[in-house]
């Protein structure tokens, strides 16, 4: 276990490096350079001035050296200055936006896990009856309908037709409700589907039969015996869930005008703000990689039958 954990943690480093390399190459493969003298509307500087500028920003060095410098600075949390918000460094913007995103993500995650577990258990206990169909429909819709589409419906239903919540913003807890629900529904569907399958599996097992044979009533059987064992496979979907919530937050945050990382990402995409793009991609990538690792380790911890 310890060896496995160490190896997995060490693997994080090359994965992150690969991510950084891909992002870096993509950025440099994009046509145009800040100092391209042939480009249309290029700066009318003399060649000497161009060379000076290139030297000033390190653009005259070979690509691998630029990459090494970038990685060196990124490790210290220095991602340079945003092209769009010139007065602020990328690190500052991320420092402000990340907590908002984390909070939104954590709330959505909580809703998704709690709701998904409830739906899944209800569906499995009432297999092939009305409640099962209702739960499965909700789960399927949650998985299939993109969350920016869902967001549109949410806004129309709950803030235009029935004005319960504001259409966007992040100032009051009331504004948190719609983005959280919208972001949660997709992962909720994933959890519900998995829980249903896992509970059905356990409900048919011999030890459930034994528990019933002892004369236990339905509630303790489901909660103490079935759910406990059904939870183990459900933990595996937590990894994909983090990814779903992470990428989902781009759309949810931009529609509901939540000042989080996802919204900045979309804005920096349309503004071609390369330092921002790279920093956000790496932040997301690192976060997801760490979360996936955590999920795998927790899984091994929860299920003593698993040996690495």
């Amino acid at each position, binding site marked *: 276990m310890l060896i496995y954990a160490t190896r997995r943690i060490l693997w994080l480093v090359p*994965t992150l490096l690969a991510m950084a390399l891909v992002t870096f190459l993509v950025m440099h493969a994009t046509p145009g350079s800040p100092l391209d003298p042939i480009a249309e509307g290029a700066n009318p500087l003399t060649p000497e001035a161009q060379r000076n500028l290139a030297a000033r920003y390190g653009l005259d060095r070979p690509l691998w050296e630029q990459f090494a410098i970038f990685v060196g600075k990124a490790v210290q949390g220095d991602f340079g200055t945003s092209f769009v918000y010139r007065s602020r460094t990328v690190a500052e913007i991320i420092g402000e936006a990340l907590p908002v995103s984390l909070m939104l993500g954590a709330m959505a995650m909580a809703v998704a896990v709690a709701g998904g577990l409830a739906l899944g258990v209800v569906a499995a206990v009432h297999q092939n009856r009305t409640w099962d169909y209702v739960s499965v429909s909700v789960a399927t819709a949650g998985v299939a309908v993109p969350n920016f589409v869902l967001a549109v419906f949410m806004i129309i239903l709950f803030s235009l037709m029935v004005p319960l919540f504001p259409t966007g913003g992040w100032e009051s807890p009331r504004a948190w409700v719609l983005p959280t629900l919208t972001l949660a529904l997709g992962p909720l569907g994933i959890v519900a589907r998995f829980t249903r399958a896992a509970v059905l599996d356990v409900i048919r097992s011999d030890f459930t039969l034994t528990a019933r044979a002892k004369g236990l009533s339905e509630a303790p059987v489901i909660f103490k015996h079935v759910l406990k064992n059904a939870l183990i496979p459900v933990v595996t979907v937590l990894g994909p869930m983090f990814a779903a919530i992470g990428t989902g937050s781009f759309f949810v945050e931009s529609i509901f005008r939540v000042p989080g990382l996802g919204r900045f990402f979309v804005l920096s995409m349309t503004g071609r703000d390369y330092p921002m793009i790279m920093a956000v991609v790496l932040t997301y990538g690192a976060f997801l990689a760490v979360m996936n690792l955590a999920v795998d380790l927790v899984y091994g911890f929860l299920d003593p039958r698993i040996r690495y």
Partner: protein
Amino acid sequence: MVIALCVVAIFANVLAPYAYTKTNFGRLNEGPSRDYPLGTDQLGRDVLSRIIYGARISMLVGLGAQVIIVLLGVPIGALSGYLGGRTDLALTRIVDVMYAFPRLLFVILVMSMLGAGLANIFIAIGVTGWVGIARQTRAQVLALKEKEFADAARALGAGGGRVLARHIVPNALTPIVVAVTFGIPEAIFTEAALSFIGVGINPPTPSWGQMVGEGQQYLRSYWHLCVFPSIAIAVTMLSFTFLGDGVRDALDPKLQ
């Protein structure tokens, strides 16, 4: 439903009441009326016609991207599984790293490098999507290459390439077909998402995601701009997901 969608996509030019670029500046942002069943957008274009043409883009991306994914993923996965050894190790490492990269993020990055456009969407989805199929094919080939029928084919003198292409891969098709059917709504979603944030399909070509993205700014005053394409996306995604479920249940009785 899926068939209806395909028909709409193929005969878009016959079905649409107006050309998708035809503007009517006298009637901007109108709600549904007799002339314009689903209203007009901020340039006075017919929303219904744009949705019908948008179906074409969605279907094209959904199906076209799968072709690229299969053409890349199946041979790579099959080779990796069949040859084993160092080739396998190298390919699996690449697959693992790509798997760790959040998919949509990667697609957005590739799109920002290539620029918006239909062909680039194919490339972006294809280049990032083959990993899943390759993994599955590899697992299948690993299991099948030890089976008797593969040995029999080898005993009859068939070379490695022939055994792989004619005997093993056809037997590994079931999970690949299932994965491809589920890949269709995913690709449609990816296109819609890309167009929504403005790095997907170039205007004036209509795409549902782009319509939702533009309409979302005017949601309060002109709800119809956003709602109808949203419904189109939701219905399409749901029908293809059900199709996937159906295909899986039909081909793989073990999963029930």
